[in-house]
């Protein structure tokens, strides 16, 4: 195997086998162990990533040429778009980042033996398969007269989601999202309590690793944003029942735009929910592989707090074209621009962390570096969209699609993969094959750029979103974009090859296989950590680095 610097190859950690692990069924279904639950979340995220990825590849195949080729009708395409958005966001990114890595590493990083409410932790997980099953049922039950499934986009605006989809498909989505929402709310309560109440002796808030900070802010966003979505979903549910309510029915004095306010009041914090944990992960990776402590630690932590706070007061930048009052638009324009400042602080602090460092380009570091650059590209197009005047042109064009895939499919997803490769040895005790991992990285890096960079051009040229067919002037860039999807697909294949190979060959790794630079508490434990860590709580010294 390729030995990594500072890595010592050890046998099975002592005492690993007789540490009170329950039998298979009890261990994986009745689990109360944060690491096992974290693993379940990661597996769940990978499965959802496959489903969401499959949907997006079908979409790209359809869009490769003008005309309608693969889908039976337009409705089916819209169903794929909607489910792709929902599944990627609620069932891939959130479970992987928050449920997966959060569960695995927040307790360890703050020096706690487990989460505050281990049983509720498992409830958070098991609500997700329930939710996903509801969404999958939705595929096969009638949406409206045009076919099965819900085709009203992930934003679910009424009246298209009420009178426009009378079938039960959308009801299942509502139930599924409610379940997923409560899963996240319980998770948020758990993380907040763990972080505030279970830090090891000497671990003050200002000594806490940045990933824990990131998850703390994320948890607050979840706690305050998701209940509003739940209320909005209930309103949709009762509006859909005939003889029910008329919140969004103008004929009865209701207001269809109000749903957009409620949705985006949740929706905008939601996008930071998806990126903040990735910020945390990237901070650790940059610091580890520059062999330097993170630059401007306090600035980094409070920048995330600032992003979280400001994130709650910018929601209507998604609604510039709904006919809002101009002064409101001006306010939302200004508030949205403000977010670029704390985000900039983070970007520059990462660069400053690397400055003067001794940089190793390991696989996780490659993902992290790519993350920084691609997130900047996505972030600055967000600044373009924030200009309400210009958004009158760009809103609901592919420019927006390009923007949010740069921050999601390249921000959040690159964060996930960076964390996955960074902690892979720690979580599973084995090291991946570097070639396969590098192939995964490069195919993915090139692939997603080829998919999404040309989409800026499409948007500028005027192509609207959620179109199954388009004027042939848009054909060239769509073809390029679809070609990129095939490259990305190859990347996904290498990801799975990497996984299979690593678990077949089983190269064992030591406690701190990244060596100097990896300073957080997880590196003091064996790989994988014992079933219950910190039976004796670690003590953080006063002069310790964060």
């Amino acid at each position, binding site marked *: 195997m390729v030995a990594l610097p500072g890595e010592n190859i050890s046998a099975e950690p002592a005492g690993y086998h007789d540490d009170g692990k329950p039998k298979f069924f009890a261990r994986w279904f009745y689990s109360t162990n944060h690491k096992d639950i974290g693993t379940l979340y990661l597996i769940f995220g990978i499965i959802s990533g496959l489903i969401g990825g499959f949907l997006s590849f079908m979409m790209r195949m359809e869009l490769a040429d003008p005309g309608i080729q693969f889908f039976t009708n337009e409705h089916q395409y819209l169903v794929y778009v909607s489910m792709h958005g929902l599944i990627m966001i609620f069932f891939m990114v959130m479970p992987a980042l928050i449920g997966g890595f959060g569960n695995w590493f927040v307790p360890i990083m703050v020096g706690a033996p487990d989460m505050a409410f281990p049983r509720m932790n498992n409830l958070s997980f098991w609500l997700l398969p*329930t939710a996903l099953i509801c969404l999958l049922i939705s595929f096969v039950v009638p949406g409206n007269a045009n076919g099965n499934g819900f085709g009203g986009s992930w934003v679910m605006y009424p009246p298209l989601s009420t009178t426009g989809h009378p079938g039960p498909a959308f009801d299942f989505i509502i139930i599924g999202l409610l379940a997923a929402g409560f899963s996240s709310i319980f998770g948020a309560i758990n993380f907040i309590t763990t972080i505030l*109440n279970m830090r090891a002796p000497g671990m003050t808030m200002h000594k806490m690793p940045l990933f824990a900070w990131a998850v703390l802010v994320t948890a607050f966003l979840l706690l305050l944003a998701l209940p509003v979505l739940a209320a909005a979903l209930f309103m949709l549910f009762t509006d*859909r029942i005939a003889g029910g309510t008329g919140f969004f029915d103008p004929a009865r004095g209701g207001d269809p735009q109000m749903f957009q*306010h409620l949705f985006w009041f949740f929706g905008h914090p939601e996008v930071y929910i998806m990126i903040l944990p990735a910020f945390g992960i990237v901070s650790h990776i940059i610091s580890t592989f520059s062999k330097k402590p993170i630059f401007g630690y306090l600035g980094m932590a409070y920048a995330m707090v600032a992003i979280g706070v400001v994130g709650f007061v910018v929601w209507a930048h998604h609604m510039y074209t709904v006919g809002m009052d101009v002064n409101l638009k001006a306010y939302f324009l200004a508030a949205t621009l403000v977010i670029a400042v704390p985000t900039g602080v983070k970007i520059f602090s990462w660069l400053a962390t690397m400055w003067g460092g001794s940089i190793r380009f390991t696989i996780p570091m490659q993902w992290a570096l790519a993350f920084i650059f691609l997130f900047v590209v996505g972030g600055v197009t967000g600044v373009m969209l924030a200009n309400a005047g210009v958004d009158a042109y760009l809103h609901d064009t592919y420019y927006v699609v390009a923007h949010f895939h740069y921050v999601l499919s390249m921000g959040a997803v690159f964060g996930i993969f960076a964390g996955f490769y960074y902690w892979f040895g720690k979580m599973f005790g084995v090291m991946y094959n570097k070639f396969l991992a590098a192939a995964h990285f490069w195919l993915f890096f090139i692939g997603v750029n080829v998919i999404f960079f040309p989409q800026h051009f499409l948007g500028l040229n005027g192509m609207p979103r959620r179109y199954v067919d388009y004027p042939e002037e848009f054909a060239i860039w769509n073809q390029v974009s679809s070609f990129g999807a095939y490259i990305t697909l190859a990347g996904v294949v290498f990801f799975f090859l990497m996984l299979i190979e690593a678990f077949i060959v089983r190269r064992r790794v030591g406690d701190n296989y990244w060596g100097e630079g990896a300073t957080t508490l997880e590196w003091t434990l064996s790989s994988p950590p*014992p079933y219950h860590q910190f039976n004796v709580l670690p003590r953080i010294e006063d002069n310790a680095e964060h």
Partner: protein
Amino acid sequence: MAGHAVEHDYHLIPPSPWPFLSGVACLVWGVGMVTFFAGLVPRTGESPMLEWFFSKGLDSLQDSYRPVADQVGADGGWAILLAGTIMAALVMISWWKDVAAESRAGDHTPVVDIGLRYGMIMFIMQEAMFFVGWFWMFFELGLFHKMRAAWNTDVLENAPEYADSMAPGIHAVDAWNLPLMNTIVLLLSGTTVTWAHHALIHGDRKGAKWGLGLTVLLGLFFTGLQGIEYVELFHERGEGAPWLSTDAYGSAFFMATGFHGLHVLIGTIFLGVMFLRLTKGGLRPEKHFGLEAAAWYWHFVDVVWLFLFAFVYIIFASSLHG
């Protein structure tokens, strides 16, 4: 480190079936919700499994935009919903039994106790945000309704026919009748629960029982009054009283007060369980977080009601009537 004996005060819990079973119960309940309220309509004979599963006729989708109304109460739906609810209730009971037992066994050390407090505060925070959603909806409808209907006078001059789409007149519920009574009931229950708490702290278990028992009764009384109000409104619907489906006020009114009522019910059950524990000798003067949590929850429900009373019943009712 695995070899070491446990030297910390945190509460590590052995594997438990309840979370997993909650997930299953939630799935059943969710399917029941949909089948009951919307009805499942297999479109073709292509999916025999679905056909078997759902009892709706195949022809339903022919008149596809038919209101979902006549499917309410669709056969079969209620059974699934009921099954899901029972399952969920059983799981919850078992779960909380475990928690109570752990508390008795001394697993809730001081640090765990603080954790429970954090947890409860966070839970109430998210409940508060849930009601923010409903109040926001209500304010939007109440404050900007006229503005929306007459979006721009200039517009209306130019396009008179658009005025037709203005909302119908709004009717509100009289605040100074049952709602006033309800306010008094809830405020009173807030004092009785505090009485119970203080009595328990001072070792006066009898007083605690009285206080708690009265709170539960007041809670039930509130629910009863609310029920009477709903029934009256139901009978007067169409004669000027608001109803769920008549207008935006009715929708907001029923959903906001309805969800509040649901929370009252949950709070009552919560307090009732504490009452049972108290009578069975549980809850010690120095350690009774269950009761405190129930009291916090109850006060929260109380505050929400005050907001509802002030805005939904009084302020908007008077402004909308005119």
